């Protein structure tokens, strides 16, 4: 196997919201072109970690971040152009957020912000992204109706299409399949496997089996601590390094 470069380096990251410690000193690397799963029960700090990576943690003024998260070797908390950082990262949040725009405009939002104006280029991009999110066939006849009128699952796929639209280097999926039926979930999982050749995918999921199916490596977090990180062969084997990992993965607790 080719040695992969680290895309994101996390060292001794701690995040505190007032008195609540959300992340309690975690360190690991996420490699280029891998699918990296993060599993763990609620309140384990998974979503907070994603917020630090794309610096949307800035919108929680009570949060205190110490330690270091580097993307491409640059400390995200000190990066000068935070908008450029965020454009590098596609984010799909657990509850679908269709912007109050048409389906087309939702997907074309980020490319337009990046300065693409040409109609044909946008058309092509929108179609490609909607295809990738397994949504094209359902919406191709009503691209100009409101995105917020779609069903929950369709909106979720719309946000995936949107996250792909600015061709991010890192794609973060936070519980993406929460509102999607299993068949569609499978379609999107297939897409994610293909995307691995182009980008780094971080997959935060409550579905342990989803991490097992998709991820190359997986981290198991609990109460803001990293319990174990390793390749899926180890994490999902009968003998992971930590007993808790085995118990969680096999549904003995959590």
């Amino acid at each position, binding site marked *: 196997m080719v040695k992969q470069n680290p895309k994101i380096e996390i060292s001794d990251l701690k995040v505190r919201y007032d008195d609540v410690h959300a992340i309690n000193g975690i360190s690991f690397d996420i490699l280029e072109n891998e699918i990296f799963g993060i599993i763990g029960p609620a309140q384990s700090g998974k979503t907070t970690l994603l917020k630090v990576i*794309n610096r*949307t943690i800035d919108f929680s003024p009570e949060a205190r971040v110490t330690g270091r998260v580097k993307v491409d070797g640059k400390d995200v908390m000190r990066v000068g152009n935070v908008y*450029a950082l965020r454009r590098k990262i596609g984010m799909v*949040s657990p509850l679908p957020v269709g*912007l*109050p725009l048409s389906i087309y405009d939702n997907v074309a939002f980020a490319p337009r*912000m990046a300065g693409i104006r040409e109609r044909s280029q946008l058309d092509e991009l929108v179609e490609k992204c909607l295809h990738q999110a397994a949504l094209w066939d359902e919406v191709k006849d009503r691209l100009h109706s409101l995105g917020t009128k779609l069903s929950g699952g369709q909106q979720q796929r719309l946000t995936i299409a949107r996250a792909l639209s*600015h061709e991010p280097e890192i794609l973060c999926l936070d519980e993406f399949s929460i509102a999607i039926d299993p068949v569609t979930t499978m379609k999107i999982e297939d897409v994610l496997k293909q995307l691995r050749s182009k980008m780094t995918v971080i997959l935060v999921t409550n579905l342990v089996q989803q991490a097992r199916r998709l991820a190359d490596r997986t981290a198991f977090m609990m109460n803001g601590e990293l319990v174990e990180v390793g390749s899926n062969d180890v994490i999902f084997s009968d003998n992971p390094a930590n007993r808790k990992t085995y118990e969680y993965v096999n549904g003995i607790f959590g």
Partner: protein
Amino acid sequence: MGRGRLEIIAESLIEWVIRLCGISAIIFIFAIFLFVFKEGAEFLFNELDLTEFFFSKEWYPTSGYNKRYGVLALIVGTGSVTILAMLIAVPFGLGAAVFISEFCGPRLKESLKILIELLAAIPSVVWGFIGLTVINQLIIHVFNAPVGLNILNGGIILALMSVPIIVSIGEDALKAVPDSYREAAVAMGATRWQLIRRVLLPAAKNGLLAAALLGVGRAVGETMAVLMATGHSVNMPNSVLDSVRTLTATIAAELGEAPVNSDHYQVLFIIGLLLFSITFVVNMTADLIVRGVRKK
């Protein structure tokens, strides 16, 4: 047993009192309209030439031998002052609303909101006084005008009076935009300006429109401040430096002088009806728009 009956009676009594309070608002509105209508009805149906009323600029209600009741100049007065006021107040008000809702920190936000509410609580006669003294002098100096009581003065005063309404309603509209929209746009790398222009303004546009319309309603109905600031002379203006007179100010100034039930008295009530209709239409439109927002 007796106590149970008492409770039932008390309960229904309270219910009726509350119901009456609610209905009274409707009764008052209709009563006011009916009263105003009744005072002007006789003249409206028998003698008033509506074409002359709306299209003549001759307002001579007290002329000895040839009374003329044309309110065109007054409508133009109200319209010009209102339009100028909105040209100033809508950009400032909406800008302030965006600033308060999106840019400033929580502490500054609280103090700004209190200050703006204070601005709304200043009595209109005080605004008129400021127009009469401060802005009057300013306009004379800056524009070298013979008098400073004109459309410009009235427009500025009215703008200052409408801004608080526009700011607070506009800020409410922006606050009603779900945070998830902001997060989604920001996560895609939108800058603050892109976020405001591409997401917040389109999402809040109905509420912001309603804010502007309520500002218009406020401006059309204002009386004392414009009476003091516009110069109060019946005149078809050629520029913003000309004095005008508004519909509201005419009623306020002349009603006390007009003999009860005279033609003049009745025409003033017809002007009242006209104002009533204008503000009713403006408020109704604003209300329908706000309702449209809630439905979505």
